[in-house]
């Protein structure tokens, strides 16, 4: 066993232990802010695993998207919700937790049996060119159509996010040609009031 393989093995072990510890912290800690920061740790460890798998682009994207965007968003959400509320402890809590643990352990056992039992086809070719170049080539050859469709998807996600976030100004003369009985559940409360007052 040479030095490179040793380093790979040790960093894999280190990353794995760190990731499992951080993930347990996310689930078990009571303070939600700690959970959010530990989640960032899980994402970082995962990108480390991607580096070990020679997937440098995915590793960078993982940090950019998950740590840089998703995790920050989660932290913002936690900061904006500052309502203190004490929840009543749920009865038979251990039963629910036990059932969840049972399902999770069962699923884990099933999937790990499957992973170990299946003879995976392992790709042994050594890639020397950068993965970014390869991904780019795929995007403009055999995965051209999904790549272009993703642009429409992103456009619509943007439009949709703006629609959900913007403040609607209700036009004054909305109710001019409507009939009196028109009170859809979707109508804003103020507007419904003006219609019935009229």
């Amino acid at each position: 066993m040479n030095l490179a393989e040793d380093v790979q093995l040790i960093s894999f072990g280190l990353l794995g232990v760190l990731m499992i510890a951080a993930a347990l912290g996310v689930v078990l800690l009571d303070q939600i802010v700690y959970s959010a920061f530990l989640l960032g740790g899980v994402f970082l460890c995962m990108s480390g695993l991607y580096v070990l798998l020679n997937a440098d682009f995915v590793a960078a994207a993982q940090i950019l998207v998950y740590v840089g965007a998703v995790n920050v968003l989660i932290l913002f959400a936690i900061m904006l919700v500052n309502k203190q509320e004490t929840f009543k402890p749920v009865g038979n809590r251990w039963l629910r937790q036990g059932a969840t643990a049972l399902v999770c352990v069962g699923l884990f056992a099933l999937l790990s049996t499957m992973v170990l039992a299946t003879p995976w086809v392992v790709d042994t070719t050594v890639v020397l060119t950068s993965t970014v170049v390869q991904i780019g080539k795929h995007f403009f050859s055999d995965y051209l159509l999904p790549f272009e469709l993703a642009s429409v998807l992103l456009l619509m996600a943007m439009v949709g996010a703006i629609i959900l976030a913007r403040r609607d100004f209700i036009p004054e003369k909305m109710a001019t040609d409507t009939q009196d009985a028109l009170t859809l559940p979707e109508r804003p409360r103020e507007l419904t009031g003006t219609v019935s007052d009229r």
Partner: protein
Amino acid sequence: MDLSNDLAAQLNAGAILPEGLVIVTLMAVLVIDLIVGRKASSWLPYVAIAGLFATVAALVLQWDNPNPLAFFDSFNSDDLSVIFRGIIALSTVITILMSIRYIEQSGTSLAEFMAIMLTATLGAMFLSGANDLVMIFVSLETLSISSYLMTGYTKRDPRSNEAALKYLLIGAASSAIFLYGVSLLYGLSGGETNLAQIAAQLAQGDSDQALGLAIALVFSIAGIAFKISAVPFHQWTPDVYEGSPTPVVAFLSVGSKAAGFALALRMLLTAFESVTVEWHFIFTALAILSMILGNVVALAQTSMKRMLAYSSIAQAGFVMLGMIAGTEAGYASMVFYLLIYLFMNLGAFTCVILFSLRTGTDQISDYAGLYQKDALLTLALSICLLSLGGIPPMAGFFGKIYLFWAGWQAGLYGLVLLGLVTSVISIYYYIRVVKMMVVKEPQEMSDAVQNYPPIRWNLTGMRPLQVGIVFSLITTSLAGILSNPLLTLANNSITQTDLFHVANAAAVETVAQVAEDADPVAQ
């Protein structure tokens, strides 16, 4: 110019011309709305409808395309995908017709709604022809994300918010499960994403892969069953149907569901061909549960939209029967039923929208005595509901007969009998609404109907709604008697698709093999 021609020929870009037209329409709607503003909202829907009709025309030209594979095999525009894309485009046309007035009255902007609706259509259309795992997932997400956005479109309504949140959470979870199954498929086939190549790789794989393949199958079916809302993946359906804007529900129950069935057919018949027995078994379970639970729970509903939600779950169960039959007649009956379901279900939803626009309620009991006030609405809703239930002269009856006949031919006696029994149950809750509208005496009329506003078709957006109602009324009542063109269309779409020939050849081979194996024993 020369280069671009070469490129288009090499990619066979003509195969996605219909989708290209949808994208052009979508861009036109967005840009015109940006430039002209709210003044355009009176004629903008017609731009969208014209674009969709152009799409349908382009689809007609695609029929019997000798060279269906496009974009390096990632998209397949064979006749099966053409007919499903046609169903989806038509469902969007009718949905836009019914949404003009609805969106106007809910005080939200129409242009963005249509843009999102067109994106959902685009995703569904690409999904019907997707032939590659990456393509399948991206188009599935395009459909799903635009559906979430539409579900929460009336954001001042808490029920719509709740529906959107539920749909988003359950949908994201099911997408993740689907993606996990698909990634297993990628690994098992040694790094292939094309469905045909996956099937080829899996066929020569050894028996050690059986467990992995089974898990991949179950996880993929979980994702697909969420889209077609088959029991037990149906929990989102009633709440989402009740809370979200009614035109969206109409699209979800027809367009989105059709796309789900197209995906199921293509994926299960190619990639999972080696485990046909297993997926038939899983789908049998799904069909039984959907038919029983959908129809029985629908009996107890008091809200019209919730009742239609459970009825759509049950209808998905009937359609699955054609898939389990596994014969060409079975698949053709599926396509035929979906074609008819398009008209009758959208007709029913158009009537529900019209009623709620005039009275502001969706409760079944509020429909009491509607006959006295609005004869056209009563007639159209009765015809559509009776057709959904499968009462003889309507289109739905012929669709169900064909489905059950195909199932019987394939030897699915138990399932067909169950289908018949549950159809009878379904007739009860459909008739209940009809009885409520027609039979009640004037003094039993509900308050909503007593305060029924005078019928005015000249309000903005009412005319398209009227067109939608009359169109679905005519097609639902005539498509049964004059069903031959539709039937020919459905049959041709199946017989002219290579997908089913491959599947059939394999089935014949297996049967021959079994017969050979059995022979020595007999002797």
